[in-house]
């Protein structure tokens, strides 16, 4: 990590996860671990066909099976709305919750068996049988491109199409042109912890959910809507999440089904999605077909960029993979046009997947940039420097900060890029071909409104609460650090609590905006608490700070200080006679921020080793250099960068949810057939960070690190494979059959 000077205090220190011990000793209670008395178990039965109608169902044997409390089907399930209401969030999906006999994708829920034990519920599920009138199903956009349509957006806040300058004229002016089609497959998130919900009704009008989710308030809102309750009649609790990656960004059908089942059997109900169901019930990254055209002068300066994306969505809902959105701003080209189109298929609705749009889109754009570098005979890093965007060329705004040049420089230096011989197949070690490739990484630094409260108690301990989530990224830890610094306390006396809708409202844990959004709220709540203590002190004649202005007062070592005088927090609190002092703060985006584009950048460098005859690609070395504002905790941040890169390795070389070409049904249905990298696939990953002091991005100066690691990674690896073999693989994943 960077050795540059760090401010004093906890922020910026590589402290261990505060929840680490609980996790490695099995003490952390994930949603399905919560002990709820008298809980019943629900198992979802799914459709074998992708399209059609249920003509009959036989649930008699299931109902008679031992321990069975209820079998819900479309014939007896309570009537509830399956589509989200008008105030739908970006992640709110049309659910498949037993409301009619229509089948719109394979593995759609058709029944829920509830029993007194999990085994009995599973047994009953196996006894349900159904008949279908199945229609022809389409599962691949490749053969249905004619039905492509223009979606409403290219993702939250993004228009489907963009255009600046004159691309045709730019192409005509070009000396070198690349026109190529790149494809990315369906990928399935597969967090280690499957989705799980325990639903507990208190009477008919109070619902508590223990739910593995990236957004407890989104779950609360949707469930309240479905069951016609006020939001405050629904409480969602979620202390630990074993990975989310986007597929836990909104409540899926199983959450409603669990609550529905609990209402019917009048008992708490636990429902855990099976690994096989993870491939159909909770979203996926959609397949994309991306055409990229680049034009450049002989010196490498881009004259035209065109990026046209076709992605899949479901027959009954819309999700757009915004693969060309990054293309709009990544390079300083005057002539840029992008489009997004969707094709409806008989498949489940796709959803946000780690770096949605950007991970898939940078594979195409950054592969094309590599092709252009080869055509021009220019070094790939030099080509990117030649086209560096000094300001956001799309919004025509300055960056709040940007250190991409430094990322290229330091990454290349650490990797030893200057020793690369550019000719394909020119670097080898016996029968092993060696390839070096690179690409640019980039991800928006977003901020959402968030809130937090901080409370100090007579013993001097501080409790900070916010209704955010820790999806494994280290939220517990960094919030503790931020709070400790804001209050000038050691981290040991600060406790941060999250994952409960009784706490102040916080946004989704997604979009790499948790640190920026809720971190800012935590900081501001703690500063507000300090202010309250200062107001108590200056009003109290027994305080050494009596009659000073609160504005003059600073904090140090658990005390308020000014002019050489100090008044410990515990003394202020004791004298006040109050049991505790509490402050709450809700952040909003500052007007100043809107003058800038806030974006994180990085440079990815990959080395692959490929067996000449057998085609097996193995990663042997990796360097990622990132500039993402202030790094709050170098240890947890490094883990996020590495995690993103491991995802990039999976995307580049392994991940692919295959569908049967005749039925649109997923064929890869477990982690044996759906490959993700194992430890042996992951080389030493060297992470460099370039510190940025960004006063505009948010109160804490952090841009977010959860997603940028995967961006550009697929292209860096694909470019390395080309360098090693001379084979340009434009269709992910790069499995060995494409290299034989």
């Amino acid at each position, binding site marked *: 990590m960077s050795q540059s000077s760090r401010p004093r205090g906890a922020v910026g220190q590589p402290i261990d996860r505060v929840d680490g011990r609980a996790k490695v000793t099995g003490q952390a209670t994930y949603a399905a671990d919560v002990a709820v008395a008298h809980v019943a178990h629900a198992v979802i039965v799914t*459709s*074998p*066909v992708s399209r059609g109608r249920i003509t009959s169902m036989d649930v008699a044997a299931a109902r008679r099976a031992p321990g069975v409390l209820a079998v819900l089907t479309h014939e007896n399930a309570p009537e509830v709305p399956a589509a989200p209401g008008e105030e739908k969030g970006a992640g709110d999906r049309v659910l498949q919750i037993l409301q009619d006999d229509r089948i719109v994708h*394979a593995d759609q829920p058709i029944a829920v068996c509830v029993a007194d034990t999990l*085994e009995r519920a*599973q*047994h009953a599920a*196996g006894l349900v049988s159904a008949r279908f009138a199945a229609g022809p199903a389409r599962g691949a956009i490749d053969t249905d491109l004619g039905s492509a349509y223009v979606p409403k957006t290219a993702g939250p806040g993004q228009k489907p199409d963009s255009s600046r300058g004159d691309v045709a004229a730019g192409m005509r002016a070009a000396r070198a042109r690349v026109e190529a089609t790149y494809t990315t497959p369906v990928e399935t998130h597969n967090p280690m912890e499957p989705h799980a919900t325990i639903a507990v009704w208190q009477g008919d009008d109070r619902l508590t959910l223990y739910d593995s989710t990236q957004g407890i308030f989104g779950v609360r809102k949707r469930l309240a809507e479905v069951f016609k309750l006020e939001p405050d009649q629904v409480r969602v609790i979620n202390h630990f999440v074993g990975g989310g990656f986007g597929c836990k960004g909104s409540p899926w059908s199983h959450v409603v089904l669990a609550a529905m089942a609990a209402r019917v059997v009048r008992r708490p109900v636990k429902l855990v999605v099976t690994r*096989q169901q993870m491939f159909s019930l909770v979203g996926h990254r959609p397949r994309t077909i991306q055409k990229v055209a680049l034009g450049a002068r002989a010196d490498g300066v881009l004259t035209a960029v065109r990026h046209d994306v076709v992605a899949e969505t479901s027959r009954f809902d819309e999700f757009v993979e915004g693969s060309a959105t990054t293309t709009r701003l990544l390079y300083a080209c005057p002539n840029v046009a992008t489009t997004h189109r969707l094709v409806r298929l008989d498949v489940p609705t796709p959803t946000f997947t780690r770096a949605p749009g950007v991970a898939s889109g940078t594979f195409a754009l950054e592969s094309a940039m590599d092709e252009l570098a080869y055509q021009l005979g220019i070094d790939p890093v030099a080509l990117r420097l030649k086209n560096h965007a000094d300001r956001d060329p799309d919004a025509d705004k300055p960056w709040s900060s940007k250190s991409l040049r430094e990322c290229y420089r330091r990454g290349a230096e650490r990797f030893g890029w200057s020793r690369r011989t550019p000719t394909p197949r020119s670097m080898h*070690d*016996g*029968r*092993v071909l060696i390839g070096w490739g690179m690409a640019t990484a980039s991800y928006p630094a977003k901020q959402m409104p968030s809130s937090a409260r901080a409370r100090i108690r007579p013993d001097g301990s501080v409790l900070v609460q916010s209704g955010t989530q820790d999806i494994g990224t280290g939220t517990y830890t960094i919030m503790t650090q931020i709070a400790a610094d804001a209050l000038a306390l050691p981290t040991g006396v600060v406790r941060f609590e999250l994952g409960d809708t009784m706490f102040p409202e916080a946004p989704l844990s997604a979009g790499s905006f948790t640190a920026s959004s809720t971190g800012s709220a935590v900081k501001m709540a703690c500063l507000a608490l300090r202010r309250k203590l200062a107001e108590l002190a200056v009003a109290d004649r027994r305080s050494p700070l009596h009659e000073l202005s609160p504005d003059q007062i600073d904090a140090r070592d658990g005390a308020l200080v000014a002019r050489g005088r100090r008044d410990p927090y515990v003394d202020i609190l004791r004298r006040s006679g109050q049991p505790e002092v509490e402050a709450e703060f809700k952040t909003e985006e500052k007007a100043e921020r809107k003058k800038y584009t806030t974006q994180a950048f990085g440079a990815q460098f990959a080395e692959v*080793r490929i*067996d000449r*005859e*057998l*085609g*097996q690609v*193995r990663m*042997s070395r990796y360097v990622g250099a990132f500039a993402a504002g202030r790094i709050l905790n170098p240890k947890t941040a490094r883990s996020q960068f590495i995690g993103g890169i491991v995802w990039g390795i999976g995307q580049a*070389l*392994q991940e692919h949810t*295959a*569908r*049967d*070409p*005749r*039925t649109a*049904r997923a*064929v*890869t*249905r*477990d982690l*044996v*057939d759906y*490959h993700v*990298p*194992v*430890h*042996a*696939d992951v080389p030493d990953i060297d992470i460099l960070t370039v510190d940025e002091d960004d006063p505009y991005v948010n109160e804490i100066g952090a841009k977010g690190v959860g997603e940028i690691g995967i961006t550009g990674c697929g292209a860096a690896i694909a470019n390395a494979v080309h360098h090693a073999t001379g084979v340009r693989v434009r269709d992910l994943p790069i*499995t*060995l*059959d494409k290299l*034989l």
Partner: protein
Amino acid sequence: MRPFSYVRARTVEQAVSAASPTGAQFVAGGTTLVDLMRLEVMRPPVLVDITALPLDAVEAHGDGVRVGAMARNSDVAHHPLIERRFPALAQALRSGASPQVRNMATVGGNLLQRTRCPYFRDLATACNKREPGAGCAAIGGYTRSHAVLGTSDHCIATHPSDMAVALVALDAVIHVRSVTGSRAIAAADFHTAPGGRPDVETVLRPGELITHVDLPASPMAARSRYVKVRDRASFAFALASAAVAVELRDGAIASARVALGGVATRPWRSREAEQALVGQPVGPETFRRAADAALAAARPQRDNRFKVELARRTLVRALGLATGSDRVARGGAP
């Protein structure tokens, strides 16, 4: 999972008599059976637990080595007798699954592991192996992992074992026991091609228990090699694998055994490749001819055409390594 009854056997005699009811299954490591029972792909009415049987020894036996059916894959893989005298077996075992699975899985269970054909594992699709006469959804479906050798119009499922491929190349003999007595079966004859009965996978008769596997001493065994090619570095089934054992005399191949994995419906002994090798000089041309002979009968599906050439190259690599005419490059794969 369907309800089943459970019996724990203390002796081989108890085990084979407890297994007499139709459909009874022995359970040892459980790494295949329990998984398939959860999916309801297998629904045995009776499970006979044989984990207490004293069959886990690996010991010298005459000139060869006898491996108990209950010996764990990991114990066999790292046993000095196996590493020294039957390297292909040690290599095959170490390349299979993960350390955790190898610590559970037994030799007998490995011989009987079921295919990873995704259609076999998905109750929503037709499978002759799971339900005789139902049809084969894999044919015409997504077939990247499927077999190119030994297929029929009823089944194209790949046999998943690494170990069994090595056993075929090492002329192993499988000993089985039932209430009526014992018999010995050559490893190469143990598994059957699907033909019209994909549900029948071995020559085992109902109620027969594998007790041990004999590895005969041979000059070929010490020069044996297993090469596995897969989609990731570990914990993946073979796209293609080759087990070879050769005896050299004066720069020529005196005798050879060749078996392929990952590409066939059963551990695939290639007598055609063996014939193409015997009497020929060690070298890439000989190996390539043998590889062509081994794959001459290949019948690929839509998504697995690459396996034909991949299997040839894998066999060439294994022969090169076994004969010492090829050495592993530094940092190289296999």
